[in-house]
């Protein structure tokens, strides 16, 4: 019954010994074990009490005066009182219980007595009701024995029954009385004990003792916890003088700290800050946290997290601060490092995205480039179909008018091709893939040619004029194709927007010293040298043609020996001269002016932008893509010059560009006379209105509808067209499309006539016919004369590296029937074939049978040996079939190595070489073939284990003659890639040209025409 109270008391033994304001929260910040329960633990721990320095007087003051201190004390006292009241209550409780028990017992006794008084008789000798209490008191156990004794005693006493009965009850009553007395005695004892206990409790302990014990214990725990924590705990009074400090980093003695302020103790960064911070807290009266960086001579550079809370007096005034500091230097450093890392990661990520973007753009550009290449191919192939068909049409019998129409058609077709190339060019310039090719060219002729071309397609009554100043060098070096492109663009623009008046070109040299010019010069020099090398190769090739030709030509026969030796000489000299060439730079200023509609001032800024025209009206009225000027500007800038425009509305515009050009060395210029002669030659026959010598040209307006009539301007036009082809030959290096075009023309002419003499005269007639009979015969003669001159000029040209053979080939063709006579005089000729033919006669033992076979093949005249190197079966089949239809027999091998074997076995006039092949690719094979042609022996790598090594070494032993005269076999690459890079690769590897796949009749035919002298 009293148990539950005891339990309650147990639970309440130490609910919290700490101030209410600390322990008020559900989660207690300080929980301590009961003292004594596990005392050993703390005893084992050594507690350094040194760090804490206490101003005890202050503590006392604090406990007395500060609100917190007094409330703490009050609580402790209250608690003690409560405990003791509780104990008293407990004891009283117990006392009550006991007295209640006693009352119950007494009541029971009375009841029993009552009962037994009335039931006396019934009970004799029978069972009696037994009380638990009696039994427990061991009363009844004694009583029956006693009764037996009593019975005996009673018998002994004789008055048994009566006495016995009375006695018995008497005795019983007596006994009960005694028991009662005993109980009362026990009660008294308990009472006494209780009193004693109360007394004991009262004397056991004083509250102060207990309080100090608890405090000590708490203090111990605090020390135990704080001894390794990097914290500083302190209390400062109102003046911020230390009253208490617990410092994990003890550097100073008690007397150094207590009663002093931070500023008095420390010095250095952060001290002032913490002082101010504490003051602030003191003033504001609310706790605050702050991170403060210290840099003091005492403990170096450290960062502390400081927590400061104000302490209030009972009256509510602030009387000081408690503060706590924790060293967070590492954390701060880590945090800062983290921040830095995060920043770096962010930067990295930004970079990555940037890079990804760049990659994406690059990929896009690549794709776009690829697409452009594909597109240009796609557009070009149908167009070549059109042009090719027109060409074929040209071979059929046509009357004059039809032929004129066809000529226009062909030139338009070429123009469209050129346009497609322009678009490709623009994208190339923009993507930085555009490469400039430096070639030697004559500015006068470029200007003239551009005007001629413009005149040829002129449909307006405009005067076209050109003026080239005397200070412009006869020859300069630059990318003539691009310069022509620019001029053509500007001129056609000018014509487009001019309805009457004139359009013209002024070209003169300016003395402009551009800072970038020297740079470009140097950079261009290597390219220039390279192109020179190419030109030289071509020249030697040309030379062989010319030699052959001249050896066959009876009219030139007298000069032949002298000529050829001289040429050899010159060529050698030429090579030496290459090193000293291209020293000077000249700036050419070119103005293209017109008297057209002009450009409004506001349209000028956007003039050079892509797809922009002066206005939408213009676009509607004049058409055009708006690409022309953009291309021009980019090309000019690419060449290191600049393009500007001045314009006045309704009066006209002038586009001016300035370009740096290299000037070839003096020796090159010395050939001028021949050239000029040749030019004037052609000019005499051509048109008197164009004054070539003075560098001025005027093209008078053509009247509409006279295109096909036989008046003078027509002659001029047609003739100019012819001579423009001539120019192309002068200018280009044998690779431009106009070249093949003219060769086509020549061939077509040849085909038209069975007779060789009429081949020329017929061709001339075509152009000269409109002049009327008298003029015609004159023109005819002059032309013939011109032709011969031209051939001579061609010879001299070859020393300059100019290729004339395309043009000459037609003449040479015509003279082919004279070969037999030519052969007899051809002993000195260095042409391989002539040499071989000679050798057949004089040295039959040295010649392999293949040569003889080849000779017969040659005499056949129409069939050449062509080698196709291609691994793709389909391509082989197609090419073979095409060749058969074109009337040529071809041998087929499947890779580069086989090609070389085939070459060792027999001679070929032309090789079509696939670029991508297994075993040995086309590039490598070409290099090896070229090196053989140069050195006269095969590279060891290909002759190993080869049966035909002997043949080649034979030719080596033939001496320098054989090596020198070995003809360069034209090798044409077949490439699936129409990008310019791969074309450049082909040329760099020694190939002469390339056809893009799939091969078509057109490009096959063109190649055959170009490279087979038929």
């Amino acid at each position, binding site marked *: 019954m009293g148990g539950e109270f005891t339990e309650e008391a147990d639970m309440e033994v130490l609910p919290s010994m700490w101030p209410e304001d600390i322990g008020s929260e559900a989660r207690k910040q300080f929980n301590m074990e009961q003292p004594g329960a596990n005392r050993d633990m703390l005893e084992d721990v050594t507690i350094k009490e040194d760090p804490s320095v206490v101003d005890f007087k202050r503590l006392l003051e604090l406990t007395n005066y500060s609100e917190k201190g007094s409330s703490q004390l009050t609580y402790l006292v209250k608690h003690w009182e409560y405990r003791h009241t509780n104990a008293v209550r407990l004891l009283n409780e117990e006392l009550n219980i006991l007295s209640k028990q006693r009352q119950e017992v007494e009541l029971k006794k009375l009841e029993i007595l009552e009962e037994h008084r009335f039931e006396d008789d019934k009970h004799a000798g029978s069972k009696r009701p037994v009380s638990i209490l009696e039994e427990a008191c061991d009363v009844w156990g004694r009583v029956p024995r006693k009764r037996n004794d009593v019975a005996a005693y009673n018998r002994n006493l004789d008055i048994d029954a009566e006495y016995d009965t009375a006695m018995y009850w008497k005795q019983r009553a007596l006994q009960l009385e005694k028991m009662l007395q005993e109980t009362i005695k026990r009660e008294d004892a308990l009472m006494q004990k209780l009193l004693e206990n109360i007394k004991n409790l009262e004397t056991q302990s004083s509250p102060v003792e207990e309080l100090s014990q608890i405090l000590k214990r708490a203090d111990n725990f605090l020390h135990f916890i704080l001894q390794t924590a990097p914290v500083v705990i302190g209390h400062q009074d109102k003046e911020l003088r230390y009253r208490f400090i617990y410092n994990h980093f003890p550097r100073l003695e008690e007397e150094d700290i207590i009663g002093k302020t931070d500023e008095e103790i420390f010095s250095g960064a952060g001290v002032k800050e913490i002082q101010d911070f504490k003051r602030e807290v003191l003033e504001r009266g609310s706790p605050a946290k702050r991170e403060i960086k210290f840099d003091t001579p005492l403990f170096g550079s450290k960062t502390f997290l400081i927590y400061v809370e104000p302490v209030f007096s009972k009256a509510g005034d602030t009387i000081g601060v408690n503060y706590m500091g924790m060293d967070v230097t590492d954390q701060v450093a880590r945090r800062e490092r983290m921040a830095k890392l995060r920043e770096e990661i962010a930067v990295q990520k930004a970079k990555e995205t940037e890079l990804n973007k760049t990659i994406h753009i690059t990929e896009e550009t690549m794709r776009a480039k690829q697409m452009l290449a*594909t597109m240009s191919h796609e557009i070009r192939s149908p167009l070549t179909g059109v042009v090719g068909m027109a060409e074929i049409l040209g071979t059929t019998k046509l009357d004059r008018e039809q032929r004129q129409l066809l000529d226009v058609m062909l030139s338009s077709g070429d123009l469209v091709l050129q346009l497609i190339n322009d678009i490709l060019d623009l994208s190339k310039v923009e993507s930085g893939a555009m490469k400039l090719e430096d070639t030697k060219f004559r500015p006068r002729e470029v200007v003239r040619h551009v005007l001629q071309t413009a005149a040829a397609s002129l449909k307006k009554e405009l005067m076209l004029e050109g003026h080239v100043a005397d200070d412009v060098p006869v020859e300069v070096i630059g990318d003539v194709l691009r310069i022509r492109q620019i001029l053509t663009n500007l001129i056609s623009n000018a014509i487009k927007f001019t309805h009457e008046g004139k359009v013209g070109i002024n070209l003169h040299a300016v003395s402009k010293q551009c800072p970038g010019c020297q740079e470009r010069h140097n950079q261009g020099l290597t390219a220039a040298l390279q192109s020179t090398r190419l030109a030289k190769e071509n020249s030697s090739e040309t030379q062989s043609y010319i030699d052959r030709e001249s050896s066959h030509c009876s009219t030139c026969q007298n000069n032949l020996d002298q000529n050829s030796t001289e040429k050899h000489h010159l060529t050698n000299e030429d090579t030496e001269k290459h090193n000293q060439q291209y020293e000077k730079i000249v700036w050419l200023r070119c103005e293209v002016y017109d008297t057209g509609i002009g450009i409004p001032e506001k349209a000028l800024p956007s003039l050079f932008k892509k797809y922009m025209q002066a206005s939408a009206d213009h676009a509607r009225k004049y058409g055009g893509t708006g690409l022309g000027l953009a291309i021009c500007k980019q090309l000019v800038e690419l060449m290191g010059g600049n393009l500007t425009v001045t314009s006045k509305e309704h009066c006209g515009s002038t586009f001016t560009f300035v370009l740096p050009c290299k000037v070839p060395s003096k020796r090159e210029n010395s050939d001028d006379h021949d050239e000029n002669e040749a030019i004037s030659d052609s000019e005499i026959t051509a048109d008197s209105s164009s004054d070539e010598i003075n560098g001025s040209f005027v093209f008078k307006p053509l009247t509409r509808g006279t295109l096909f009539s036989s008046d003078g301007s027509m002659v001029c036009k047609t003739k100019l067209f012819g001579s423009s082809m001539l120019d192309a030959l002068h200018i280009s290096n044998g690779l431009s499309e106009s070249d093949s075009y003219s060769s086509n023309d020549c061939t077509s002419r040849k085909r038209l006539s069975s007779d060789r003499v009429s081949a020329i005269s017929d061709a001339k007639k075509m152009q000269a016919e409109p002049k009327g009979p008298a003029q015609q015969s004159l023109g005819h003669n002059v032309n013939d004369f011109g032709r011969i001159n031209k051939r001579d000029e061609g010879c001299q040209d070859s020393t300059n590296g100019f290729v004339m053979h395309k043009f000459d080939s037609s003449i040479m063709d015509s003279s082919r029937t004279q070969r037999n006579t030519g052969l007899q005089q051809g002993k000195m000729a260095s042409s391989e074939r002539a040499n071989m033919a000679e050798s057949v006669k004089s040295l039959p033992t040295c010649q392999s049978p293949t040569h003889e076979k080849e000779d017969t093949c040659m005499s056949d005249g129409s069939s050449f040996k062509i080698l196709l190197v291609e691994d793709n079966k*389909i391509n082989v089949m197609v090419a073979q079939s095409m060749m058969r239809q074109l009337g040529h027999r071809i041998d087929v091998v499947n890779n580069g190595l086989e090609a070389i074997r085939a070459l060792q076995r027999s001679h070929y006039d032309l090789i079509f070489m696939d670029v991508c092949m297994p075993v040995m690719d086309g590039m490598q094979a070409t290099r090896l073939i070229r090196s053989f042609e140069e050195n006269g022996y095969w590279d060891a790598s290909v002759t190993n284990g080869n049966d035909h090594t002997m043949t080649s070494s034979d030719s080596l032993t033939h001496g320098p003659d054989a090596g020198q005269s070995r003809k360069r076999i034209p090798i044409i690459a077949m490439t699936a890639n129409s990008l310019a890079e791969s074309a450049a690769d082909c040329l760099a590897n020694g190939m002469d040209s390339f056809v893009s796949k799939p091969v078509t*009749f057109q490009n096959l035919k063109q190649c055959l025409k170009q490279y087979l002298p038929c």
Partner: protein
Amino acid sequence: MLGLGAARLEADMNRLMALLFHQGVLDEQFMQLQQLQDESSPNFVSEVISIYFRESEKLLKNLRSLLADRECTDYTKIGIHLNQLMGSSSSIGAKRVRTVCLAFRAASEHSNWSGCLRLLEVLEHEYCYLKTKLHELFQMEQHRVMAAGARYHPALS
């Protein structure tokens, strides 16, 4: 009746060809191929095409097996195969196959496996389409020749 059939077949053939050209499946190179067919080689086109199919099937099979494992894919080999296929496709004028080959090659140059696989599927699709259509065309051609033969050379039929 047979004569009429020939004319109809020719019209059908022309229609089919026009369709194929219009769809860009074939280009003018195919016309060049047809030009090559003459009396000396009457079956030239179908011979070339059947060789093309034979070769291409091999190449496609190889490509499929080369792309089987993502980890060890030999992109150089794929490039070589594609060059082959591209070369022969452009020679017969199979324009769309060639275009897909181009894209495929670009993907293989970037070692883009998933792209390659996708393009291989496209390529196979294009190839199958081309094959069916050309087969159709040749069948018609055969019928036409037979019909024409029946008309012009009754003894031969």
